[in-house]
């Protein structure tokens, strides 16, 4: 009797798809914890020579920058930590306004004046090098960024972990919807890297746009591509079944190798090499690898997971 009862219950009991558990335990939670740690170190720094701490925090951010759902989207936290791209140049304008303010309330300010991308201007742009109030503002923004990172991490641990892990709730009706969220994070991350991190500086052949490269002032533009691909590979391998795994891995390695080949070009760190015809080809090839990888996931991984492509924030203009 007891046995039959258990047997009857089994189909309706919710056991998380193991891939969701693994994604949470080995990808999402540790990477957001790393972001909190890195921003804590940045906020704790006692001088405004924080280039190294900033660099570690930026690396941690890029590694989670594809996880744009749930806790990152509450109160626009992710935007407050990382506002980019900024086609209208709102970041230097917001910083200029904050610098004239004696006691700026960073957490109420425009997202363009907050977070790691705003800090990059203060740390690396010559226009801000000797400006009055720079040091105080660096410390204020670092504190605000840390609080934001902490809020994201706490929200994941206290709330959203359970939402994603134990589906059958208002947000995820079932595991398929949770897997779709993860799949969408993966594909949107790849789209962002090819369209924004690479596509923006590439511009067109006749009109390259090196000034539009992500974090070009600190020379992180190319490294961000590599860091994002590495993190996305981690997620892709969690989602891929045994059969797809070798192929997924091979394709990611191909793209990451190409990033390495670009890195061997002198002066490639800020991707300004898009202006040299000979070097530009290597960057275009890198973008092509990412586009192929994206198409492959769409054709093979999506159906394997039984998910649709879905909509994302890049769908607009």
């Amino acid at each position, binding site marked *: 009797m007891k046995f039959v009862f258990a047997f009857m219950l089994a189909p309706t009991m919710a056991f998380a798809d193991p891939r969701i558990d693994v994604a949470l335990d080995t990808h999402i939670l540790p990477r957001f914890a790393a972001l909190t740690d890195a921003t804590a170190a940045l906020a704790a720094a006692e001088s405004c020579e924080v280039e190294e701490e900033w660099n570690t925090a930026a690396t941690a951010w890029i590694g989670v920058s594809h996880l744009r759902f749930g806790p990152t989207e509450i109160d*626009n936290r992710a*935007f*407050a930590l990382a*506002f980019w791209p900024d*086609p*209208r*140049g*709102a970041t230097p304008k*917001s910083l200029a306004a904050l610098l004239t303010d004696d006691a700026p309330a960073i957490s*109420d*300010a*425009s*997202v*363009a004046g907050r977070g790691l991308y705003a800090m990059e201007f203060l740390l690396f742009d010559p226009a801000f090098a000797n400006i009055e109030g720079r040091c105080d503002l660096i410390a204020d923004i670092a504190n605000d960024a840390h609080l934001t990172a902490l809020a994201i991490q706490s929200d994941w641990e206290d709330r959203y972990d359970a939402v994603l892990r134990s589906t059958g709730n208002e947000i995820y*009706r079932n595991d*398929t919807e949770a897997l*779709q969220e993860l799949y969408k994070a993966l*594909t*949107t991350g790849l*789209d962002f890297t090819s*369209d924004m991190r690479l596509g923006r500086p590439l*511009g*067109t052949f006749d*009109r390259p746009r090196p*000034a*539009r490269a992500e974090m070009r002032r600190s020379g992180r533009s190319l490294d961000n591509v590599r860091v994002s691909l590495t993190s996305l590979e981690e997620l892709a391998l969690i989602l891929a079944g045994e059969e797809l795994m070798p192929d997924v891995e091979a394709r990611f390695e191909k793209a990451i190798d190409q990033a390495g080949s670009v890195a061997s070009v002198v002066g490639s760190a800020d991707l300004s090499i898009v202006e040299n015809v000979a070097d530009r080809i290597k960057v275009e090839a890198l973008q092509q690898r990412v*586009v192929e990888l*994206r*198409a492959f996931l*769409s*054709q093979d991984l*999506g*159906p394997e997971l*039984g*998910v*649709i*492509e*879905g*909509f*994302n*924030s*890049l*769908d*607009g*203009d």
Partner: protein
Amino acid sequence: MKKTLLTTALTFVAPMAFAEGHAQDVLNTYANIAEAKYQDSLITAQTLQAAIDVLIADPSEANLNAAKSAWLAARVPYQQTEVYRFGNAIVDDWEGKVNAWPLDEGLIDYVDASYGGPTDENEFAALNVIANPTFTLSGQDVDATSITPDFLEGQLHEADGVEANVATGYHAIEFLLWGQDLNGHGTGAGDRAWTDYAMGDDCTNGNCDRRGEYLKAATDLLVADLEWMVGQWGQDGGARAEIMADETAGLSAMLTGMGSLSYGEVAGERMRLGVMLNDPEEEHSCFADNTHNDHYYDGLGVQNVYLGSYTRIGGTVVSGASMADLVAGVDPALDAEMRNRLSATMRELGDIKHAAEAGFAYDMMLQAGNAEGEDLIMGGVNAFIDQTRSIERIVAAVGVDGIAIEGSDSLDDPEAVFQ
């Protein structure tokens, strides 16, 4: 405007349950509503054109106000067509000429000193073509002594490959009618004097003849562009043919348009970004302060496409078999969820519209620390996001288990979707 549909590529598999017939009817309604909406957009744009002809021939405050009223009326049907973007390549390729936004208006006419000059992103942000009949563009000498639709469309629009160089469409006309809104987060829209179109010594801010010439050219171009799009949705039109050619692709286009407009475009680019940046310029109709209506009629367009019923500007109803019927046939609870969420969105957008019409303008809502304004706008954002989740569920629900989702043309070959 972005020319690829990279991330929008919904793939879609028509269920066997409601084979042929019904999907054809749904698509037919969809195309009929498109035709009616573009016809209404054309009719109201022609009214605008007539009002602008009167303004230029006989400049006066009353005639400027009449042109502004006509512009506002023209936006009502046009915004409801935006749900046809993203899914339909013919619409998407064309849309940038008609409704491009945001714009660096200094390209077109004089601006306030606070606007600044050329930027890193745009060397021509302050070109002021109305004051400069000749200039150099990307190393080429440009002759703009005569401002014609061809010049605006062919040379000035998206000059130097910069999207913010918007030379044509509703928002260029809006700027020429209202001027910059220099009130920041305070009360009031752009306040261009009618004398900017006056002749002889009454002319203010110089070059009134060229300003009138520009306004006329932009409006004529808008009318011509809308005429072309009406034809695309006629019985023999290309956009209709594309939709009717393949049921799966047609239904996918419908849902792609609904979801992409709701989420990435309106909730993201147009609403949330403004709240986050607290920038009074980050509103879709920043000169006329008509943004509450832009969002409202975008939302209404999504709802009436789903329900398969559009009430024309003259009151006639165009309706027929709908996506709602189709979803109800597969999963009635999901249809109810979708209807509820569309209604919820319209209530939220209605709240923004009502507050704005009662004096709490959209740019006031965007001010840093204005909690009520932020709540109003974020209510709309969240409702759009919620309805997008339901659209995703519809895409999944009307698909058939076990049939592989196909790769998308737009991913494999970004150019293919526009062929």
